[in-house]
């Protein structure tokens, strides 16, 4: 998918609360029509990033542009009510004293209401059965849909979603996730989704930006992020790779799991994803199975070498591995990064 219009751009944005630096040199590009994910662990500054873009907080330094116009800088400040940005809060923030219908209508002006926008949004989000209920009478999933409807109603330039699916149970989250993505795509709405869930980020987003300690360290398509992470941190934030230390000489690096080709010289981290290791049962094998965790669609087998180092492999569920089985391994793909000193 190609996007060619930049909608939001932040440059060198920094923000600290009580002397604690939350964002520093935060650079994010959001393309019009895309779903951009900000993936980061808790405390990495995800929510702060959204609050700055929405205008609920002001950055200490840096520039935020929207449609090629500066909306935040040292001199410029566009208040949140003028930005036309919709936000779905982590706690949904539905107004408890207003019915579902009035919550959704809250951001609509007279013109919108006369043109039947309210009914359009309610139908679009499948909420017609709930319009007279109050937020406290709704389930988590329903509240989520109302919050999204409320955010979408005024046709915002972009919708910001703060950990939208974390407070729901796994199955509900999956159903709702598909619904939300379909809705965003159908309405060609640009969205920024903040999440700590790698699966969510990879499956939902067109662009994933990995946030670490207040900085975007890689921003790319989900495939690129997964297959070609630029650093150990990125590799760790998507999937659970085996990270081995090694030293590369003349483009070859020797590790506990074998010798690999590397584009870099010197001290390296070698990342091998568990699904890239194939195990073969072999009574002469040089590795011993330690433990096997069965997930149904696949299984994760931890195995150790003669030095007692433990690694993980992921395989299809049809072979049964038991602790003590001897195996040989075949490695299909590795990624190397220069070690940080």
């Amino acid at each position, binding site marked *: 998918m190609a996007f060619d219009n930049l909608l939001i751009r932040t440059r060198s944005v920094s923000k600290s609360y009580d002397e604690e630096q939350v964002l520093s040199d935060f650079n994010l590009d959001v393309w019009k029509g895309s779903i951009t994910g900000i993936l980061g662990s808790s405390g990495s500054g995800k929510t702060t990033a959204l609050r700055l873009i*929405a*205008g*609920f907080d002001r950055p200490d330094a840096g520039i935020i542009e929207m449609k090629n116009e500066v909306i935040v800088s040292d001199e410029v400040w566009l*208040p949140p*009510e*003028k*930005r036309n940005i919709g*936000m779905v*809060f982590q706690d949904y923030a539905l107004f408890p*004293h207003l019915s579902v219908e009035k919550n959704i209508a809250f951001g609509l002006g007279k013109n919108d209401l006369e043109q039947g926008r309210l009914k359009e949004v309610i139908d679009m989000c499948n909420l017609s059965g709930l319009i007279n209920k109050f937020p406290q009478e709704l389930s988590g999933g329903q509240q989520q849909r109302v919050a999204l409807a409320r955010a979408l109603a005024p046709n915002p330039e972009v919708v910001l979603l703060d950990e939208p699916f974390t407070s729901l149970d796994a199955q509900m989250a999956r159903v709702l996730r598909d619904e939300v993505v379909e809705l965003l795509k159908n309405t060609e709405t640009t969205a920024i989704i903040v999440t700590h869930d790698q699966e969510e980020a990879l499956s939902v987003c067109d662009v994933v930006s990995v946030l670490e300690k207040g900085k975007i360290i890689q921003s790319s398509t989900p495939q690129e992020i997964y297959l070609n992470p630029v650093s150990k941190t990125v590799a760790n934030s998507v999937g659970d790779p085996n990270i081995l230390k090694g030293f590369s000489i003349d483009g070859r690096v020797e590790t506990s799991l074998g010798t690999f080709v590397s584009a870099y010289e010197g001290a390296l981290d070698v990342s091998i994803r568990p699904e890239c290791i194939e195990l073969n049962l072999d009574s002469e094998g040089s590795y011993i199975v330690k433990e096997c965790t069965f997930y149904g669609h696949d299984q994760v087998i931890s195995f150790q070498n003669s030095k007692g180092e433990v690694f993980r492999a992921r395989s299809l569920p049809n072979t049964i591995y038991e602790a003590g089985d001897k195996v040989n391994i075949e490695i299909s793909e590795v990624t190397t990064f220069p070690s940080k000193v």
Partner: protein
Amino acid sequence: MLIISYLIVFLPQAVGGGQAAMEQVKSSYIDASLGMGMNKFMTFTKITLPLIYKGLVAGGALVFLSTMKELPQTLLLRPTGLNTMAVDVWSYASEGLFTNAAFSAFILLAISAFPTYILSTRNLTR
């Protein structure tokens, strides 16, 4: 003097009610409203005020009720010539004029019934 002492005794009650009400207004409600194009004044009238209104009324009713029936402070600090109904009831009763006391007591009850009604319905709907 009497008013100052009333203030000192009843202010915490009123503030307590108001504070409990304010705690119901999460900061994300305000943000949500601003994000949907409402300015600060409109956010206050459409979100904050409706949410704290009940608490404020309840706090007021509570203070009103307590002030109506308050006796010791009033007895000690009232200026000469000022009688509250609670003082009336007390002085008539202590002189044995129970018919007069009953009349004041009845009025007092009737007036107090109103805030009590507000307070009790509020608790029932919770």
